[in-house]
């Protein structure tokens, strides 16, 4: 187990080093623009899986958390001109509180009722932001980037690195949860909530914890988007496309292990970036939807399940 952990942290350190090196060496801006989006979806998918994968609560409200993250940053920039780090940290706190609120509101809801409630929440928050003049209302708001830190050549490169840090943070948290009693408890309540409760698993507290952690990470991932786009408007920040994209990435990757959503986000994220360059954004959503449906029908465990089956098949063949 310890060797496993060393390998994990080594890989994470290597990843951050590679990202940092890339910002120093690569001059072209485009890889950072595209890469930022992929990293952002990795964080969102890993965060989604903490509640959706381990605990089995299908959250359609990714857009709500993402949008709240964006608008927390927008509000802070407009009101105080707070730096990026403060924006992200505040967004994480707001996200944790929103997660707690979602958890408390949906205590007794399961399955589709939970999912529908999260969509409802997303739309209600979006409408409230639309009617909030201070942050621009329906028309949206322009944001000025502050000067970039000296280490980086451009602001987008810095955001790229920051989002990479968030990726490491999200994966570390998901890995910790998965390997600890929290993860075992969440899996128990996914399989049978009543039985878990009866055998002494504190299902309520675990569920709330999953909502809080997942919500905090999603909001944190959304916060830098305001600076990335230099613009925010409610209908794009709270777009349900975020919900379906993240859902697809997690389920296509497989939710049994934290690596699943990472694989799914990379695979779909890269595909989307390629498609966005070559074809329209509608086709993008179409490809996403079709892949989601195909995987859910034909490969219920996602890529992880396919890999596991292939490994088992090969082992069986040789024996």
């Amino acid at each position, binding site marked *: 187990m310890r060797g496993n952990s060393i390998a994990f942290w080594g890989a994470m350190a290597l990843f951050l080093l590679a990202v940092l090196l890339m910002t120093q060496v690569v001059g072209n801006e485009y890889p950072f623009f595209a890469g930022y989006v992929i990293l952002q979806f990795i964080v969102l998918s890993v965060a989604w899986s903490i509640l*959706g994968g381990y605990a*089995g609560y*299908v959250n*359609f409200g990714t857009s709500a958390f993402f949008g709240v993250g964006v608008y927390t940053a927008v509000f802070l920039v407009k009101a105080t001109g707070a730096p990026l780090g403060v924006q992200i940290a505040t967004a994480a706190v707001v996200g944790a509180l929103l997660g707690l609120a979602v958890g408390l*509101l*949906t205590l*007794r*809801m399961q*399955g*589709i*009722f939970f*999912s*529908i*409630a999260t*969509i*409802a*929440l997303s*739309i*209600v928050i*979006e*409408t*409230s932001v*639309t*009617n909030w003049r201070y942050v621009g209302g*329906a028309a949206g708001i322009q944001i000025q980037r502050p000067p970039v830190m000296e280490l980086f050549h451009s602001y987008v490169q810095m955001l790229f690195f920051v989002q990479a840090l968030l990726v490491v943070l999200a994966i570390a948290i998901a890995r910790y949860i998965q390997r600890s009693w929290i993860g075992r408890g969440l899996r128990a309540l996914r*399989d049978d909530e009543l039985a878990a409760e009866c055998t002494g698993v504190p299902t309520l507290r675990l569920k709330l914890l999953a909502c809080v952690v997942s919500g905090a990470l999603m909001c944190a991932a959304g916060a830098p988007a305001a600076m990335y786009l230099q613009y925010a408007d409610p209908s794009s920040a709270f777009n*349900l496309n975020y919900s*379906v994209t993240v*859902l*697809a990435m997690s*389920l296509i990757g497989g939710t049994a292990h934290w690596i699943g959503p990472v694989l799914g986000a990379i695979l779909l994220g890269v595909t989307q970036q390629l498609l966005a360059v070559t074809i329209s954004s*509608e*086709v993008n*959503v*179409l490809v*996403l*939807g*079709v892949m*989601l*449906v195909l995987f*859910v*029908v034909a490969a*219920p465990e996602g890529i992880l399940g396919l890999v596991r089956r292939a490994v088992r098949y090969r082992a069986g063949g040789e024996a």
Partner: protein
Amino acid sequence: MISMDLLLNAVVLGVLLGCFYAAVSLGLSVSFGLLDVPHVAHPAFLILASYGVYFLNDSFDIDPLLAGLLITPLLFFFGLAAYRIYYETFEKRGSDAGVRGIAFLFGIAFIIEVLIILYFGVDQRSVSASYIGKAWRIGDMRIPLRLIVAFGVASALTVLLTLYLSRTFMGRAIRAVAQDQEALRLMGANPVKIKQWAFGIATAVLGVAGALLIIVAPVDPTLDRAYIGRTFCVVVMAGLGSMTGTLIAAIILGVVESIVLSTVGASWAPAISFGMLLAVLAIRPQGLLGRRS
């Protein structure tokens, strides 16, 4: 304070609007309320039906209501096939089907949305008929004729479906399958076939409902997102599977929406149905006339 006239006007329009909401929610009341299918794609099916009506009206100049009736058999078979696929891939396999079933239907909803965008474009579409654009005047009140048509047809549809479920053999079988599937199996009936038939009916109803949708107001491909809130709000508030409840809940939603629109303003409109849905889920998840305690 707002004047009594304005309030009365809002209430009357709200009742008419509510009956229309009942018509678009009836299918979900059967598929989700009675059959327990987490049918998030119901609003997308509805928009698809509206575009079918638009296509017939635009290319062959067929009256929208007639067009709705024409596509009804098509939708029925579409529903039969859809349930078969859903059953074979999710319900039959049992464990963990819930999560993936919901994701599947959510994915289907987005696929339908994009296909409509690719074929018809993102612009709003509307139909033409003699009764669209005219209005009745009663005193100071001006009621659009299209809302009255929607009200009449929606009421008829609700009554028909209620009668079908309570008076016919198949209708009673559908309600039986919702109550106790195993008991039905013991009586020698095949619950899957009955559920498939019921899902077909639930989808077929969308023909006329989709026609009403595009008669009442222009539709665009992403309108299904707003109707997720409206239809689920109505069905959950009604108490799963109750047709009378569906009508009452829809009228409540219609009146509340209409009053908020005429007092607070249109910018809050999307939050009304979703807000009510949240409130109902949090406070009284069994609905007004719930079949489950």
